[in-house]
């Protein structure tokens, strides 16, 4: 198993190297050490059980996030119970104890409108995926850029930015997100009503229908609130690493060569402060999913009939504990999503740690030396 | 206590025999120290010389069993004469008895004073707890003693300095505190592991002077670990040269500098710049230190040695070429 995964990664790496050779001849020669480094990482990852489980969970989640709304066999905004009252609060029917095919029962039960929980969860996965990706894709670069500027320029710029960061960090993340998410929707609603393109773009991103514009505004408010909560942590960490990196000789050298500030910042400093960020981002994709769900749970995010997982749990509260499945299955879905990211992050921390790679290299050397040679040999 | 009858010549204080230390690591078993034997006489400074990673530190730590997993002392004896005259094997006595000896009769000075001192404890506390651990004095008296010791290692304002934390002291001052803790119980044997490596050159000389001063005063024996031959020439009486976990040559210091025998020792001495002569080209030993996971068979130096013969793949005997001058090399072995 591990061997197959490792081989697969090697093929991908070799393909990338070949592609780069096509674009810039001689690339793989110049970067042979980097390529063997990548292969070592792939080796370390393939031997980490935690990493593989995490990778599998995340892959499943991402695939469901992409195709979920299309394979969901019922639309979230159809209410079968209004047609057929028998579908109201059907119990879940899980295989070893119960056969959903012969009994003709839903796998994970139905809710107060007779909607199938499984299909709601499939749709909810899309919403959670989009939220976490946007939050991280906006919040992290924002934090990185502000941290870079503060660390590099120092002085008044640094002082002002760090005081602003302090203020944001002074609030507990959940509370600040709540405050923003309660005030932002009205702004977004205006935008969505006036700007057709934005509206259509986000509706299709979340796979929602047109009636849900107010809910979409709430979703965007949650996302935006989380972005505002997310950047300060990154700004602080990046600033710290920039402060230590910028004193190093290679930065001095780059500056004395007369490179522009931007070039020094982005070509020489940024790559050297990014490595902890990769691991943090992986963890944060899970955390963002959970925090967004927590906001929806508190009733700040989208409302009926949008099947946001946290909101589904909060809807199930009224019927808890009798109709426990409405709370549990969306909740378990959230748990599995976050677990996937956390497992992946936990193993990436080991894989990306140069110390682990060195000890692996030591161990593997001699036995499998051929494997780590770069593609050139082929 | 071991049942065996242990013997130690009266003029010796410590005799290490056939010591073997292994480390079980991820990458394989590291044979850090393989069959090392050496003696320390009363009142002498013995230098243990060799490149980084040749097992000097491990050897000295193994003497009082300061080897923790993944390390393991596989074999050997360390026969030591205690203050009360009893002769014991440090590698087989109980943990409790050993604790009684550590810091009391055998004391250590570690290489890096910054990491050897606990940042959360004051300089004084380090000394006081060492004294209290080995005697029945109360903390107050121990504290006065600490001030006296700090004064003795030439720390200015000792009564103020007892209260300072390590981070408030300079590197040289920290090493003086470490030395003060080491001599707190007037040890019979002081093991100084590269005591000056992490210090400024000017401070190095002061620390060395201090050590020889203390040696005279307390009539201690010192095992000095170093890779700096200048220091060896300055204060050592006898020298053991280590290479890749084995002792390759031993002699008194004049003999060794005058007539180095082992090709490795010669290489080491030639790699030293001579301030008198104009330097044409500094010689060096070709190749690198071998991996101790799969050490070369026989003489471990043979892959780098320009005199290597086929016989070098077998274990060389330790030959006494002159009285008190031993070398483990096939060049001098009569076959």
């Amino acid at each position, binding site marked *: 198993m591990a061997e197959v995964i490792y081989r697969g990664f090697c093929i991908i790496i070799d393909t990338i190297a070949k592609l780069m050779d096509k674009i810039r001849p001689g690339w793989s020669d110049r970067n042979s050490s980097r390529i063997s480094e990548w292969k070592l990482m792939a080796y370390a990852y393939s031997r980490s059980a935690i990493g593989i489980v995490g990778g599998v969970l995340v892959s499943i989640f991402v695939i469901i996030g992409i195709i979920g709304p299309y394979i969901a066999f019922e639309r979230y905004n159809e209410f079968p119970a209004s047609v057929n009252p028998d579908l109201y609060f059907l119990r879940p029917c899980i295989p070893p104890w119960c056969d959903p095919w012969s009994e003709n029962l839903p796998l994970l039960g139905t809710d107060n409108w007779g909607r199938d929980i499984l299909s709601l969860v499939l749709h909810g996965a899309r919403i959670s995926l989009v939220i976490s990706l946007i939050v991280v894709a906006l919040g992290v670069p924002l934090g990185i850029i502000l941290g870079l500027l503060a660390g590099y320029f120092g002085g008044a710029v640094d002082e002002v930015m760090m005081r602003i960061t302090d203020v944001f960090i002074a609030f507990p993340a959940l509370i600040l997100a709540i405050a923003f998410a309660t005030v932002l929707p009205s702004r977004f609603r205006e935008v969505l009503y006036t700007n057709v393109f934005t509206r259509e773009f986000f509706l299709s991103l979340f796979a929602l229908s047109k009636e849900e514009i107010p809910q979409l505004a709430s979703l965007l408010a949650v996302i935006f609130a989380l972005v505002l909560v997310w950047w300060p942590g990154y700004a602080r960490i990046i600033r710290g690493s920039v402060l230590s990196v910028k004193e190093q000789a290679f930065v001095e050298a780059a500056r004395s060569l007369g490179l522009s500030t931007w070039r020094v910042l982005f070509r020489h400093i940024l790559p050297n402060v990014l490595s902890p960020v990769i691991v943090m981002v992986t963890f944060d994709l899970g955390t963002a999913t959970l925090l967004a769900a927590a906001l929806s749970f508190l009733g700040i995010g989208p409302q009926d009939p949008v099947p946001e997982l946290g909101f589904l749990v909060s809807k199930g509260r009224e019927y808890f504990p009798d109709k426990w499945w409405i*709370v549990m299955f969306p909740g378990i879905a959230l748990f599995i999503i976050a677990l996937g990211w956390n497992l992946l992050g936990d193993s990436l921390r080991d894989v990306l740690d140069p110390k682990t790679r060195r000890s692996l290299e030591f161990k593997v050397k001699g036995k499998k030396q051929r494997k780590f040679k770069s593609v050139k040999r082929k | 206590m071991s049942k065996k009858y242990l013997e130690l010549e009266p003029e010796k204080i410590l005799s290490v025999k056939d010591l073997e230390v292994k480390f079980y690591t991820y990458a394989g078993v590291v044979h850090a120290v393989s069959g090392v034997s050496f003696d320390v006489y009363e009142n002498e400074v013995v230098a243990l010389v060799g490149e980084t990673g040749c097992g000097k530190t491990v050897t000295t730590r193994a003497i009082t069993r300061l080897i923790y997993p993944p390390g393991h002392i596989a074999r050997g004896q360390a026969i030591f004469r205690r203050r009360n005259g009893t002769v014991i094997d440090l590698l087989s006595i109980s943990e409790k008895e050993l604790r009684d000896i550590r810091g009391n009769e055998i004391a250590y000075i570690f290489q890096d004073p910054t990491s050897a001192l606990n940042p959360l404890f004051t300089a004084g506390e380090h000394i006081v707890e060492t004294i209290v651990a080995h005697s029945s004095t109360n903390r107050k008296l121990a504290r006065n003693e600490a001030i006296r010791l700090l004064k003795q290692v030439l720390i200015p304002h000792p009564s103020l300095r007892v209260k300072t934390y390590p981070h408030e002291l300079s590197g040289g001052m920290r090493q003086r505190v470490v030395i003060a803790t080491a001599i707190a119980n007037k040890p019979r044997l002081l093991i100084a592991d590269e005591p000056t490596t992490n210090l400024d050159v000017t401070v190095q000389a002061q620390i060395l002077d201090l050590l020889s001063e203390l040696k005279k005063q307390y009539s201690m024996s010192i095992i000095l670990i170093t890779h700096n031959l200048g220091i060896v020439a300055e204060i050592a009486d006898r020298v053991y040269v280590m290479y890749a976990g084995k002792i390759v040559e031993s002699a008194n210091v004049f003999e060794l500098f005058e007539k180095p025998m082992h090709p490795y020792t010669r290489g080491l001495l030639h790699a030293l710049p001579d301030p008198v002569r104009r330097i044409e080209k500094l010689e060096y030993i070709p190749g690198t230190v071998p991996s101790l996971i799969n050490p070369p068979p026989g003489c471990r130096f043979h892959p780098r040695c320009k005199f290597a013969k086929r016989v070098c793949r077998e274990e060389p005997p330790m030959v006494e070429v002159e009285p008190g001058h031993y070398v483990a090399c096939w060049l001098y072995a009569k076959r």
Partner: protein
Amino acid sequence: MGLGRFLARRIATFIPTIIGVIFLTYLIAYAIPANPVRAWVGGEKMVDPKLIERIRHEYKFDAPWYEQFTFLFTQLISGQLRDPVRGKLVIVSLGERFPITVELALFGMMFLLIISIPLGIAAALKKDTPIDFAVRFLALFGSSMPSFVLYYLLILAFFTVLGITYLAGIPEPSRPCRLFVSNLPNVVPVVGYLGSYIGKIPMFGAMMCGEWSVVHETFKRMWLPGLALGLLSGGFVARILRNSLLDALGSEYVLFARARGLSKFRVWKHALKNAMIPVVTVLGLQFGGFLAGAIIAETVFGIPGMGRYVYDAISRLNFPAIIGGTFLFAIVYVTVNLIVDILYAVIDPRVRY
């Protein structure tokens, strides 16, 4: 040495942070909402225009921004912010509920310590064994589990199925007892003040008057939320303790302590004192986190604390209450962080510089 100076400097950065917090609160209250007045009276629902007019005037929506800011500043600092729905001062409502939230957080801390300290030490001593792996799993479990889902799982298990706990509400000491506690400052001079504050926390108040049945009742209700909070971060804290303990045990100063022949106890003292530094920081942050997380725990477990108040304010879009609650949460959080920093400086002389 420089502890006093450290304190002065740390408190000096505390004040601009508070001003910043108020400014951010101002932005949320006045600048970001599309129609702040409507938000303040309760969302976008149709409301009496007269009420809107009154609110507009009362809360200075017709004034320029700096007047609005100073208005909010003085209102928040002096605690005069009034909840337009109930007509009660926000600070009064929050003040009644804050001790209950602290009680919840204390129960969380108790379980957190019970779970994390032994597990962390065990995992460090038995590195790479099933115990170590279990701690790693608990850490991953805690950080992956949505808090509210864990709460419902525990309720399902211990309340619905096993029926060994009670839910909702918080036992309070009797009326004479509360009077006695609030009267303490008049009885004992300095200690009395402290006592009356601590006594506001229901369980401690009851302890002071010897009403043990109330204490017993409190335990019966609070152990489950406390356990839930402890489970969520227990693995994480244990993991940090494990890592820092392993670092400490493998350090040169511990080896040097052994080389000096110190007793096992002293050697452990050297290792643990260092290992506790990151743990103390994390525990402090967790306490702040518990206070903030109370908003979810109190909602699920039906505890009438500060979080529950903010939750109710959100569902009714009671804006001044949200603002006041947000502000108070920030102040508490910043203060907890300040205390953690001071504690840190007390333990570790290096940060005092």
